[in-house]
């Protein structure tokens, strides 16, 4: 596994100079140190997909070999590529209003619909410019994490 590489947001990161000692491997607790300082950090995940909490921030890291990376890239090319984009619920809750309809033209950041969860009104915004395709949910629908809300064409 010596050809493993770590990527954050698609960019290769060099872990140079940081030494990792496990405090509790099962719990994902590690002590990270360089020559002058050290800190404790948490890691969760499995396979190629990891999340490291550093200074209170969850940082998603993909760890993969050249072969794994090549295969994954092929998958993405096949399914994405400027095609329709699924907008999904990032947390479970109740859809309280929908600001757009099939055919609406939206720009990145524009409010699409509102989900009530944790006693808060949470607006779901457009991740990119596009035209709203199918709207899968209706006001009053309960949605689960990851559930499809609408498609952007």
């Amino acid at each position, binding site marked *: 596994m010596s050809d493993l590489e770590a990527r954050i947001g698609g960019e290769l990161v060099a872990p*140079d*100079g940081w030494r990792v000692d496990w405090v509790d491997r099962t719990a994902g607790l590690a002590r990270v140190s360089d020559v002058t300082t050290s800190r404790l950090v948490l890691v969760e995940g499995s396979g190629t997909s990891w999340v490291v909490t550093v200074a209170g921030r969850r940082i*998603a890291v993909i760890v993969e070999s050249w072969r794994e990376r090549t295969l994954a890239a092929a998958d993405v090319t096949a399914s994405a590529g400027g095609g329709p984009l699924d907008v999904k619920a990032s947390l479970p809750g109740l859809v309280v209003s929908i600001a757009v309809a099939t055919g609406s033209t939206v720009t990145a950041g524009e409010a699409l619909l509102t989900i009530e969860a944790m006693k808060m009104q949470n607006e779901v915004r457009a991740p990119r410019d596009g035209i709203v395709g199918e709207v899968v949910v209706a006001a009053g629908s309960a949605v689960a994490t990851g559930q499809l809300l609408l498609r952007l064409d």
Partner: protein
Amino acid sequence: MTAGRPFRRLLVANRGEIAVRIIRACRELGIESIAVHSEADVDALHVRLADRSVLIGAASPAASYLSIDRIVAAAREAGADAVHPGYGFLSENAAFARAVEAAGIVFVGPPPAAIEALGDKLAARRAVAGAGVPLVPGLTVPLDDDVAIDPAQLGFPIMLKAAAGGGGRGMRRVNEAGELAAALAVARREAQTAFGDATVYAERLISPARHVEIQLLGDQHGHLVCLGERDCSVQRRNQKLVEESPSPAVTPQLRAAMFDCARRVAGTVAFHSAATVEFLLDVAGDHYFLEMNTRLQVEHGVTELVTGLDLVAWQIRIAAGEPLPDDLTDRTPSGHAIEVRLYAEDPWDGFRPVAGNVSAFRMPDGPGVRVDAGVEAGTRLPVDYDPLLAKLLVHAADRPAAIARLRRALDETLIGGVQTDAGFLRWLVDDDAFASGDYDTGLIAERWRDGPAADPAQLAIAGAVALAARIDAPASVAGAAPIAAGVRPWTDAARREGLSR
């Protein structure tokens, strides 16, 4: 202990960290504690720590923690002789207080009439205006659906507020007339959800402003004291994230003036128990009454640290008729205390609440550190409730020492499974405006915005640890937690900012 205990058995009509706080007070007073829980909270920490717990309904607050009937029935069946409502939920609901008393059980809080008079923020504005208390300019009647009374007469920007409000729910800033209708609809919906009352009113927006409040404690024998102030100006969505005492903005003269105002406000009703009078300070140093909360505040621990008093124990003892000591007088804070609230939310994504499992929960200890937690490692966060995980409080001799202690404590804090605001809080202690003490309620919007990109050292550490984690992965990955649902990729922000800088 047993001989002098104020009550025999107290029902805690709340959940999370405040339920744990009240259970601990009961244990220290020799009182049996009865928790209540919804179906979503069967394994919650407050249920584990209470002497026993009663299932009162489904996860939805309306079916459980907001159900007066079910909670009163649980108290009666358990043989409780007192009920503590905590904060939020039914804590400022006069009908609940009356129902508890009608069942022959003592309500730990102010008299229902005081809750009623001050709980309606609009009625309170009318009442205190006559007592010589300075008010934020605004309406003293509700906004109709058709906006027949034009709030624009106040001059934009204005702030919409829920009459039954508190905790930032049902509040919306309106910058211009065109935003009013939509903002009013959202504010009403939140107010209805949070308080069961959609009444909304309007005040002039004071900006920049600091949010400073006075802690009151009064017994049933006419003894009332002001226990210093708390500065709660670090807010997002009009909700407090950080509180400190003393306030860097409060001079002895201003403190005395606010103490006087707070007494006048409390004097408009027959009051006992703990309450808080909230003020806004403008840039000129003038103070304006906002509202009086007739309940324990989330941030009461800050006052406990700088006064040495146990406010929850005193609420219970006062409810049992015990007088405050004669030598207890108004207090100036001693030393400096800061509280930060640890929420399951993503400060890099608009402080959006997140759900998930708390897979790891390592909290700091040592000198001058207090932790009031509502969760532990393994707790699953229900989506139905406020995502407060814990309050981390520090106490030190002065403000710079308290900030240094908070930095150290946050560096020791490790929470896994869900994104929290710990990273924002860690940024805050190094922020120049916060360090100087010269900040206002705009701090997050103006200085944090969406948060800085991760620095190169953080990225390198994340990469190093993730590599090590994969290389050293146990043969079975059963022990490794899956990436929690609801984790939002911060990587969008990183892409925007560029990783190479």
